[in-house]
Structure formats: structure tokens, C-alpha cells
């Protein structure tokens, strides 16, 4: 039976609410929807500290454990993005637009060049999610850049709607396509895409094991806000879910900044949400984790002497 976890404002609260809900429903649930209303909001320092302490890189009961940031980096490698600190708009001066483009290009190029080496890491030999999104099929540079295509499309959409002074209720395809094709100065090589979503696996992929857990990312524009839905086949709620939320929120922020839309909500649909009882000590082990997460204080900020 599907499960809807009430919307939480932060990644941390959404993750905790989902883990708690699935745990109390037996540990594994199908079709669990988690929603974060403010994906860019600051994480709860205590929850994050507890998760970081739990996910020390290594192995546990035969399961590979990676840190939150390592998992997040498979979706969006934040440290490679030189955030210029402002968003794109149709009225942005060429210098500013150039800086945004440069930051994105630098990111794609740096990642593409390191991808073959990155694929030698444990768990990466079949590629990474960001690799599949930025250079499909995702094991080296020179592939199809789904992210760049969607940025280009969304910028055209924004230009079209600003012309009509209406950025509300922009549909992908339909009205959006009309907004794009109606512009007299649309470049001949402008990208028209049938599907705004990002694919992370190929329909021809016949693997039975090791299939990517993240299978689709959908983007939606409504009321001038860009929202994201990520669909996971199997969401590991302790080893992966928190890092996935962090990575997805960073990806959404990047796309919103590069296209000038506000950040909407982030939702994750897990066709199977799993509390990983066999890895973390059974029901009592998860009880203990939940208790620890709820009571871990936020680390002090050295500069302020107050909880983060």
C-alpha cells in the first residue's frame, strides 16, 4: 500500500519523517512519497550530525557505507561548481550570462574529464547519476548533456513567457513550446525536447542486478517555480536517502539558478522504501537510530559558539 509522508520544510525533517513512518509501518513500504517544501533551507544540524556519525565510510554487514556528501556528489558534484552567486534572467547583461555559462561549462568539463577515473571507485563502475545526466551514457566526456539541453530549453521558455509578461503556469510542451517557437530570434539549433525529465537509465538496459536505483527525474514549472520529482526503484533510507536528498536539492538549485526560476519543491517517490533492518540491527537497531537522531545536538559553530 502506498504511503504519503506529510510534507516537511527541510531535507532533514523530511528524511527523518520518512524513516520513522516506514519503520513504524514494518520497515519496508511500496510507493512512498517524501516531499520537501523548501529544499534550499538549512539542514537541521543535529539530524545531519547524527547521520554523518552513522555513515562512516566502510562496510557494515556486507553493505558498503558512503558518507552523505559522497552519495550527494553522485547526483551533483557541488565542489566543482563555482557558483557565481546570481541567477540567470533574460535581461542579464552578457557578462553576467557569460559567467553563469562559464560556471556550468566548467562543471561539465571538469566532471567529464574525471569520469573515467571516478568510475574506478567502488560502486561507480557502471557510471554515476551526474555522469548520466551530463554526458549520457555516462562513463566519459563527449556524451549527451541532458542538463545543458534542459537549461537551454527552460531559458527559452523563460524568455518567451517574459515577453508575454506571464511566468505563471508554464506547462512543459504545450504552452511552453508555443512560447519558444513564437520568438522571432530563436536560434536555428534551439533544442526542442519531448521530455523535460532526466533519464538515468536506458530502456535497453537489461541488467537484473546492479540496476540504477534512481530511474527518473522529472521537472515541473508552476507559478514561476521549478520543482523536481525523483523516482527511485529502491530507496535505502539510511545508507542513501539523506545523501540523495542533499544531492537532488543541489541539482534543483543549480537548474533554478541557471534558468532564473525560483526553487519549488523536491519530492522523492520510492517504489520500495527500505529501512535496512538487516544492516542496522533489526527493529531495535532502527529504534535506537531514530532515538539518537532525535537527541543529537547540532554541532556548535566555532565562529558563533551557538548550535548550527
Amino acid at each position, binding site marked *: 500500500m502506498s504511503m504519503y509522508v506529510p510534507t516537511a520544510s527541510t531535507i532533514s525533517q523530511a528524511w527523518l519523517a520518512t524513516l520513522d513512518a516506514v519503520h513504524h509501518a514494518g520497515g519496508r513500504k511500496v510507493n512512498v512519497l517524501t516531499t520537501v517544501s523548501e529544499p534550499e533551507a538549512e539542514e537541521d544540524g543535529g539530524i545531519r550530525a547524527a547521520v554523518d556519525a552513522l555513515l562512516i*565510510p566502510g562496510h557494515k554487514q556486507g553493505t558498503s557505507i558512503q558518507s552523505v*556528501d*559522497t552519495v550527494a*556528489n553522485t547526483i551533483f*558534484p*557541488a*565542489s*566543482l561548481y*563555482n557558483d*557565481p*552567486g*546570481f541567477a540567470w534572467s533574460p535581461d*542579464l*547583461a*552578457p*557578462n*553576467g*550570462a*557569460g*559567467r553563469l*555559462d*562559464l560556471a*556550468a*561549462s*566548467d562543471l*561539465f*568539463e*571538469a566532471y*567529464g*574529464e*574525471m569520469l*573515467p*577515473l*571516478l568510475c*574506478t*571507485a*567502488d560502486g*561507480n563502475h557502471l557510471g554515476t547519476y551526474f555522469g548520466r545526466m551530463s*554526458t549520457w551514457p555516462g562513463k566519459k*566526456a*563527449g556524451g549527451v*548533456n541532458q542538463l*545543458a539541453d534542459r*537549461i*537551454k530549453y527552460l*531559458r527559452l521558455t523563460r524568455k518567451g513567457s517574459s515577453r508575454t509578461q506571464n511566468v505563471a503556469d508554464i506547462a512543459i510542451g504545450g504552452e511552453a513550446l508555443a512560447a519558444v517557437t513564437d520568438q522571432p530570434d530563436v*536560434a536555428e*539549433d534551439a533544442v526542442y525536447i519531448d521530455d523535460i525529465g532526466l533519464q538515468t537509465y536506458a530502456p535497453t538496459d537489461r541488467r537484473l542486478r546492479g540496476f540504477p536505483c534512481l530511474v527518473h527525474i522529472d521537472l515541473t514549472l508552476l507559478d514561476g517555480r521549478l520543482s523536481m520529482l525523483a523516482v527511485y526503484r529502491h530507496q535505502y533510507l539510511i545508507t542513501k536517502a539523506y545523501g540523495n536528498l542533499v544531492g537532488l536539492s543541489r541539482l534543483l538549485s543549480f537548474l533554478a539558478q541557471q534558468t532564473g526560476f525560483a526553487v519549488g519543491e523536491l519530492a522523492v517517490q520510492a517504489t520500495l522504501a527500505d529501512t535496512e533492518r538487516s544492516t542496522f540491527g533489526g527493529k531495535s537497531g532502527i529504534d535506537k537510530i531514530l532515538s539518537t537522531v532525535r537527541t543529537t545536538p547540532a554541532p556548535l559553530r566555532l565562529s558563533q559558539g551557538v548550535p548550527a
Partner: protein
Amino acid sequence: MTENSAASGIGKLFFPPAEDAAVGGPSVPAADAIAAGRPGAALSAADLESMSEAQLQAEILTLLAQLQRRRLAEPAIGQAHPDGTLGVDSMTAVWVVATLSKVYGRKLVNLSKVDRDSLRSVGGLAGLVRHAVDGFSQSVGAA
């Protein structure tokens, strides 16, 4: 790293720059104000083979400045590591190793066999690269 990275094989990504350079808006830093050049472009395999670990650390700091498009004199982004050098995150560390691998002409390491601690600081990276290059040099010498 270039705008509209057609040269990198990624393809033309974004709109071409407008011909008129309008005043206003954030400006791109002058080329001579930031660490210039494609990361690692000025290095050769022979350079890597002859560098001491201290020299490698300095070169890695230059690469980081190029990656972050900032002046070499500007403070590096990151916290101090207990080994006394600049701490780096793992993604940046892998980029450094990949860049130096490109200079050297072959993958310097297999990440699944690397001690994670060597990817946490500039000092760790320099030691990792030095060890890898020495290993290749010795195997070539032995052959």
C-alpha cells in the same frame, strides 16, 4: 575551460554571447587576475616524475586555483587538515588526480584501491601522486 565548450566535445551548450558588451551586471574577472590556463596544461610527465612532494603540493594548489578560477594569492577554499596542508573534499581530490593522470598519460590510481585518507588533503594527494609516479617509473625501469 571555455564558454560554449564546443572544443571539449560537449557541444554548443548555451546561447552565443551578444556582440554588444552592455554595461552593468557582474563582470568576468580579468584573465590575468586569476590562475590562467587550462589546468595542468603547463605540466609534463617529466615534470611530475621530477617533482618532490613539496613541489607537488604547490602544483596541486595551483590546480585548485585554476579549478576555482581565482587568483593564486587568494585564500584557497577549504579548511586546514591535521597534516598541516589544505583539506580537500573527495570530489575535488579525484579531479586533481584525474588532471594529473591526464598529464602523465595514464590513470595514476584505481580509486577502489586508494587509501581514503590520501584524498582528504593536498599533502595526502601529493603523497599519493608521488607514490604512483614512482611506481610507474620503477616498473618501466625494471622492464
